[in-house]
């Protein structure tokens, strides 16, 4: 991985980190961290490895950014402010908490979510 400080613009805000995609990753989709450092779409087998949400579509093998846990993901839509959101086994983000859903944070507005990282 390249030096993150070179990738990050100055200023505070979200944690937008560059990763290599394993498989094609659409924009604004929840992704999991693989042991080789790449990211892939969430599925039932990797849901506990949720690391963040993509900031743009990324082709397989290409590098692209994701907002990771502890950051504020913007550019989403139709969120309910202050509602708790969960990542589902199919990679979508919703307020459904039924297992195996994993809590990822609270919506701050209709378009942004605070990706919690407290534990």
């Amino acid at each position, binding site marked *: 991985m390249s030096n*993150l400080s070179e990738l*990050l613009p100055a200023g505070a*805000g979200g944690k937008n980190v560059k990763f290599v995609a394993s498989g094609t990753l659409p924009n604004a989709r929840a992704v999991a961290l693989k042991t080789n*450092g790449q990211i892939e779409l969430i599925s039932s087998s990797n849901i506990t490895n949720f*690391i963040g949400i993509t900031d743009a579509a990324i082709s397989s093998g290409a590098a692209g950014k994701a*907002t990771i846990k*502890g950051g504020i993901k913007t550019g989403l839509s139709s969120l309910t402010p202050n509602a708790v959101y969960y990542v589902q086994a199919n990679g979508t983000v919703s307020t459904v908490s039924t297992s195996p859903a994993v809590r990822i944070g609270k919506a701050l*507005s209709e378009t942004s979510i605070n990706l919690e*990282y*407290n534990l």
Partner: protein
Amino acid sequence: MSNLSELLPSGGGQNQVEFVASGTLPNGKPVVLKSNGQVEVVGETSVSDGTTAYGNFATYSDGDNSTVYHEAEGCIVSCWKDQSNGFTYAKAGVVSANSNSISWGSTVQSTVSGNANNFAPTSMIYDPSSKKVMIFKNNVAFGLSVSGTTVTWDNNYGYDYDDTGTPKTAIGLDYDPTHEVIVITFANQHGRISVRTLDTSTMTFGTRVQPNGTVTSGNFVAKIVYDKNTGKHICIFDGGNYNTRPKYSIISITGSSGSNVTFTSPASLSLPNYSGYVAYAGLNIVQDPVSNFIMVMWAGSNDYGNVRGYLFSTTGITSTTNTTVFASYASQNFNVISFPPSGAIFGMWKLDADPQSTRGASFSGMAANSTIAYTTVFNVGNGQKERNHVQNNNIGAYASNANKIVIGLHNYESGNSQIRPANIYIVQPQYSHTNLTSTNLIGINSATTSSGATAKINTWGGINESQTSLTIGSDYYAQTNGTITTATGGQKLGQAISATTINMRNQP
């Protein structure tokens, strides 16, 4: 709420904050925030055994010094048989100890005398319920009230006799935190254990039991310690004479008022190389504060000092450590004191070759089948002949306010053979301590920084890229020695998202 994307600058940040470095900060190490606003690297400092300070009360003693820590007042209370009036009275005073100095309040003579030349404050214990210090001289109980640096003697609270009507010496004192009673072992051929509760003015006797009931000769010389692992009291006592192996019994305090005592049938305690000296202070016990092993210190063959740990259930011994032989010719006067900061114990004893002096060392490494480690044996005292008297269970106590052990000894070479200063020492057991607390971890240093220079710290919620050889996806923790590892015993920093990068969690 407005659209946050309009409020936030483009791109992400790393919660990187500038601080002045206190000491050199290596790259990639966790740092703590100090009260002066500077940051320093997480680390441990090792302290060696030693005696750091001493002083003596302005009166003279005939020994028999006892010391306890008064938790409510945060001070040490010392008591000794005083030379006044033919040694028939005791005196007591408050010792205020900090990390490297001692001061003391006025000494006060007991209101009740003992027999001529025989007021030996046999043993003392702090009673958290009444917030008084209980002193047992022979079979008579006294109380000491403490306020600041002033002590006040209470009248005696009553007495106990053995089954022959003979006063016997209280030789073991223990506090039961569940029932808030003091458990007492008396020297008696049959053995006697009693409980007493104390309010501000009276003491109530509980039932008495005699674990050693069939023995008709010798003496019941017992040590007793509260086992926080089981909520019972472990009593270890001689088998009736000097040549039989010591026994143990597990003591239960029962009843709504804690006035009943029950015990398990005495069983022999396996002490390898046991030489027969269990009477008086030839054996002593304490609980290791971390492992919960009951640590026994005794004289083995050729009078070598031995230590071994026993882990108890409610019915018996479940595991032991190996036996460690730690010193030659240490046959008597063993005292063992819990030193919670190190998770270990500190032991003291009389050296046969130099019987008017006291030796000490720190013991650690208590685990099943382990061999106990100990530090270099050193002179406890200040280079003088400091005598560790035989009868007392508690010549020393852990003073949590000073984080040290405070002991009372008397100087054997000063004055004549009977009149010696009542000396107080601060003893420093060996241990390591860390500057990492549950609240002061602030982040990870992003580059090597000289002391006094400005450091850029990746704080909670940030990203640190200064690591090497991380396992991607694993959680990483700051350890008390300043390392960052996957061991869960430390404080969680975050998750590795590359071999060199930790995504730090938000402030816990």
